């Protein structure tokens, strides 16, 4: 058959090994006064299935917007978004919710943990709100907490943990659902240099041991050394 002539077929095979493909993605925010902000313009980006990409750019350049679109939290105004071979461009709210549950891990810029759940429960809640595998999830949570050096902190509430420990719990939480892609939005911005480097060390180790792809957002060039590749973004425009 002449499949080579079918562009969609081509596209699917080409993206099968990619954790993320952004194809001509544009995001326009419409303000209340009718004014428009172009947060992302003609973004083209591929992230390999075990690749760690640093996304570097100044504040307001569109980094969080890009992560939100890649993670199915926000819909693009135009363009296509393919994650782990699944084209999520036209997903409904409900499909996006299920997609986030199954396919991606998040470490957000600000609030990352549920304050009334312990470290271990913050990992387990991912399973509780999703597949409910029970014992398997508990084993996975304990293993992740051990790997992250939090074995003795499992029963602590977030308020009883240091900033670095909280960030490690968030990393464990992001890995609970065995994601195809993990999105780290400025994971070290609240930490001092030394702690930040430790956290990046952990991120790299965890991603590489699981062969999981990641985007690490930062405006700190030093962080990029822990990543395989760096992509710059300025005013919503990507440049390699």
């Amino acid at each position, binding site marked *: 058959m002449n499949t080579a002539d079918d562009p969609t077929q081509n596209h699917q095979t080409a993206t099968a090994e990619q954790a993320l493909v952004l194809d001509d993605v544009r995001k326009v925010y419409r303000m209340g006064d009718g004014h428009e902000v172009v947060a992302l313009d003609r973004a083209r980006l591929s992230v390999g299935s075990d690749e760690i990409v640093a996304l570097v750019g100044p504040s307001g350049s569109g980094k*969080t917007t890009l*992560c*939100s679109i890649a993670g199915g*939290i*926000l819909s693009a105004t135009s363009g296509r978004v393919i994650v782990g071979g699944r084209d999520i461009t036209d997903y409904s709210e*409900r499909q996006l*919710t*299920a*997609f*986030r*549950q*199954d396919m991606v891990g*998040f470490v*957000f*810029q*600000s*609030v*990352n*943990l*549920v*304050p*009334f*759940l312990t470290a271990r*429960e913050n990992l*387990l*809640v*991912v399973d*509780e*709100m*999703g597949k409910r595998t029970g014992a398997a999830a508990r084993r996975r949570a304990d293993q992740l907490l051990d790997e992250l050096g939090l074995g003795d902190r499992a029963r602590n*509430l977030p308020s009883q943990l240091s900033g670095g420990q909280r960030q490690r719990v968030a990393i464990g*939480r992001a890995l609970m*659902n065995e994601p195809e892609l993990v999105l780290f*939005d400025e994971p070290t911005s609240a930490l001092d240099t030394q702690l930040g480097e430790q956290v990046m060390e952990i991120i790299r180790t965890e991603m590489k041991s699981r062969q999981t792809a990641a985007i690490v957002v930062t405006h700190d060039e030093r962080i990029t050394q822990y990543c395989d590749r760096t992509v710059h973004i300025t005013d919503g425009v990507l440049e390699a």
Partner: protein
Amino acid sequence: MFLALREMHRAKVRFGLLIVAIALLVFLILFQQSLQNGLLTSFVGGIRNQSAPVLVYSTDGQRFIQGSIITPDLEAEVRASGAVDEVSRIGQGTFTVAAGAETFDTSIVGYESLGAPERLSAGRAPNAPGEAIGADADIDQGFAIGDVVTVIPGGATLTIVGVATDVQLNAGPTLFVDYATYLEVVASVNPDAQTALPSVLGVSPAPGFSAADTTAALNALSPDLDALIRAEAADLAPGVDQIRQSFQIIFALYAIVVPCVTGLFFLIITFQKAAALTLLRALGAPARRLVSSLLFQAVLIVGGGYALGTALYYPVSQQRLGGIALRFETASVLGWAIALMVLGVGSSLIAARRVLRIDPVDATTGVGQ
């Protein structure tokens, strides 16, 4: 339910206080329900639980037994109506009665055949002049079986030979005697008066007549007759409606307060944990999971509060309050349980709406924390 239970576990004081608040409201509701029923029973229990299926008042008595007088003409009309089987004269008056060491304003009811308490809880019916049936509620005041009470002035004595439950009138001591004894009591107090006329007639329907048929037939007979089925006679007695209405206002207020308390509580905690809920939505928690977690908490809180409130109410419901005997009102307990569950859980739907409106994108920027 993981999330719901963990949250409650970590905020025991906050959820505990809400449970206690609801328990107190439940206690007050149920207590007042008992109070209302006890109060009504003490006013008209003697009508509700006497043996005549239909009571015939004179219209100008305004449904107050003591204010009603059946003239011989009216009595003759009733007897000739064809709508009645048995006809019993019933007289009632309030007398000063010395019992134990005290005197009481006592309702004395005289009956020919119909009009005595339907069932006795102890003792026997009077079978000799000067014997009386008392009310359970008055036993401690010197109206127990074997007690002899004296009507003042005049000094007629009555011996209690039986007692019945829920047969008080006018919220005070009440005695039932045969009609001849009643006439003697009236004469002893006021020797110069003519023979007293009956206050009302207790009648049973003629064969083939229902109680409603009989009242309809008698009321059509003369505008001076006011025939009422037993239950109606109790419900329409002066004051009963006012008591009911007053309590209904109180109950309506509770029916507003309970959902306000639960609704506001859940709205406040939903606002307080908005950041956590937004985070969970961003992580792929379906909104309906978060809503069912909230509703589950609402059910636990209302259910817990209700159970605690009922536990507080139970011992109190076994007490007497002044002359009023309280009861554990099982029907009210069940009815209010359903009503408050609906109101409480319904009110938390406002918070649920707020949960449904959460936009997960706010987790990326930290809005809502």
